[in-house]
């Protein structure tokens, strides 16, 4: 089976020849710079071709762009398509070496750390709805975001037989948290509901406009549209269900409706954490696949989730990055892969990937073990 044919079968809840695999088609299923270099060295796959995205979320997350040679060596079935850089960028490096993103959020990488962490949230102050209008927001009509997108999609179609994933920016939850600061963000739901609603509306408007512009360019070429917005932590939903349904869900619905109006592609939605209680709501707003299926979080029992929601929603991810991939042996990884496949793969509707980007503490041997086990145990029929 060709890679895309296999992916489309799984996306349509049919059983292909083998569970399709993802690495790097979204900014939530990728690999960081250090483990990428280690993996390439381990596989002796030539010199690490270090194509780094030096902009936006991928820069902050320090995600590498895996080379075509590596993706082929691992037999990955998807290729990612990412937005370009705006012509009039608001993002900048500040004189003290910290990084200001296009929303105005400042991050810094502490010495010895692998990560950029927030040091300044511009809305972490007393403010009103009127202040939001005065802010310099990124311009979703900036042609730089979508320039060359169609050409890149056509090139991937011509040079690979893989399914295409368009990865969009995060939606409204993360940006509003970063802007407002986490503590204010949480209490706003109770103490400043009008301000919270106005901030979320503003972000919905910007994000939707850019998503539509991207889909006007490539909506007919992509198989999956990936979008992210964490609404849960490891314990459960970040906010109560009534609050989620009042503040977040209608805006997500608006965004997904706009996507669906411009593409037949499947909607892949990423939210970390214990989302089990929210899955019926995700189904209701038209999510086709959920990522990352964070199995280390509360209630994320893959067998139970598949049984409860399998026909209505697909699963993308599930290989544990909190305990097994960083701290387990290659044999532990193979066992984990086999279990997730047995739980999630029957009937299709499953794409295997690590739970989130592979981090610097994941040894290359475990990454290789994950992909070989997936190719071995992922052949249908599953768990005969």
């Amino acid at each position, binding site marked *: 089976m060709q890679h895309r044919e296999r992916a489309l079968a799984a996306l349509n809840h049919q059983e292909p020849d083998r569970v399709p695999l993802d690495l790097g088609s979204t900014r939530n299923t990728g690999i960081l710079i250090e483990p990428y270099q280690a993996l390439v060295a381990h596989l002796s796959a030539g010199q690490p071709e270090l194509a780094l995205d030096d902009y936006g979320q991928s820069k902050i997350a320090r995600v590498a762009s895996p080379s075509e040679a590596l993706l082929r060596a691992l037999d990955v079935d998807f290729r990612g398509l990412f937005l370009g850089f705006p012509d009039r960028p608001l993002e900048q490096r500040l004189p003290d070496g910290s990084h200001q993103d296009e929303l105005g959020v400042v991050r810094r990488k*502490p010495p010895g750390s692998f990560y950029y962490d927030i040091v300044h949230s511009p809305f972490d102050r007393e403010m009103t709805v009127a202040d939001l209008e005065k802010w310099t927001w990124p311009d979703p009509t900036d042609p730089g975001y979508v320039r060359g997108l169609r050409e890149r999609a056509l090139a991937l179609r011509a040079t690979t037989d893989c399914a295409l994933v368009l990865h969009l920016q995060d939606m409204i939850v993360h940006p509003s948290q970063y802007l407002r600061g986490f*503590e204010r963000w949480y209490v706003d739901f109770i103490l400043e509901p009008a301000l919270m609603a106005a901030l979320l509306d503003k972000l919905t408007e910007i994000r939707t406009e850019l998503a539509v512009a991207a889909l006007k360019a490539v909506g007919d070429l992509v198989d999956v549209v990936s979008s992210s917005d964490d609404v849960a932590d490891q314990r459960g939903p970040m906010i109560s269900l009534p609050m989620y349904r009042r503040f977040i869900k209608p805006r997500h619905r608006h965004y997904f409706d706009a996507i669906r109006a411009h593409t037949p592609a499947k909607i892949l939605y990423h939210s970390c954490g214990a989302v089990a209680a929210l899955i019926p709501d995700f189904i209701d707003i038209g999510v086709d696949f959920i990522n990352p299926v964070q199995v280390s979080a509360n209630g994320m029992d893959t067998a139970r989730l598949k049984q409860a929601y399998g026909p209505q929603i697909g699963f993308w991810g599930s290989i544990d990055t*909190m305990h097994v991939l960083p701290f387990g042996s290659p044999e532990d990884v193979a066992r984990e892969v086999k279990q997730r496949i047995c739980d999630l793969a029957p009937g299709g509707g499953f794409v295997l990937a690590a739970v989130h980007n592979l*981090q610097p503490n994941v040894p290359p041997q475990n990454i290789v073990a994950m992909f070989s086990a997936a190719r071995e145990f992922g052949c249908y029929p599953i768990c005969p």
Partner: protein
Amino acid sequence: MDDVLQAIYDSILEGRVTEVAAEVQRALAAGHPAGVILNQAMIAAMAEVGRRFETMEYFVPEMLVAARAMKEGLALLRPALVGAQIEPVGKVVLGTVSGDLHDIGKNLVGMVLEGAGFEVVDLGVNVPPEAFVAAVREHRPQVVGLSALLTTTMLAMKATIEALRAAGLRDQVVVMVGGAPVTPAFADRIGADLYAPEAASAAARARSRFADQGGAE
């Protein structure tokens, strides 16, 4: 419970930040001892908030707003507590470990501990082991709380505990660890005394540890 105390209890539980101060004032004027207001109304309310958080009736927003209400009330009550010579349950030095800038979990733990009657010295984020050592020397806490969000930075918890040991301070404090990647097994392995899966149980566990040791309760 007396109506005035009940009103304080309800206002904290419902997070009515602006009303708590006036109610505390009313309770003091009505002749309720500061210690009774603190224990029967305020700490009792925060214990109920913690219970509701654990059973998922409350989420972080409700908990933070309740903690703010508690803080407002406590600010008003503090002079009366000092006057009545009511000591805190114990003292906690708290911080996010070296290399890690995340603080929402650590802040929540701090607020809940204050709500449970502890005095909290918050060292902030990205706190190197030697800063924990210096703070223990300076503040003489009974508890040191270490927080980390990342699987890569939680290893700094071990380094911090070792630094306390090297400084000869390890036996004088209870070391409590928590944060998303931390597990009871990891806590054991690095030689921590207490592990708490989330903020509400952190306060409860620290308090019961104190009771075990015959500390103030």
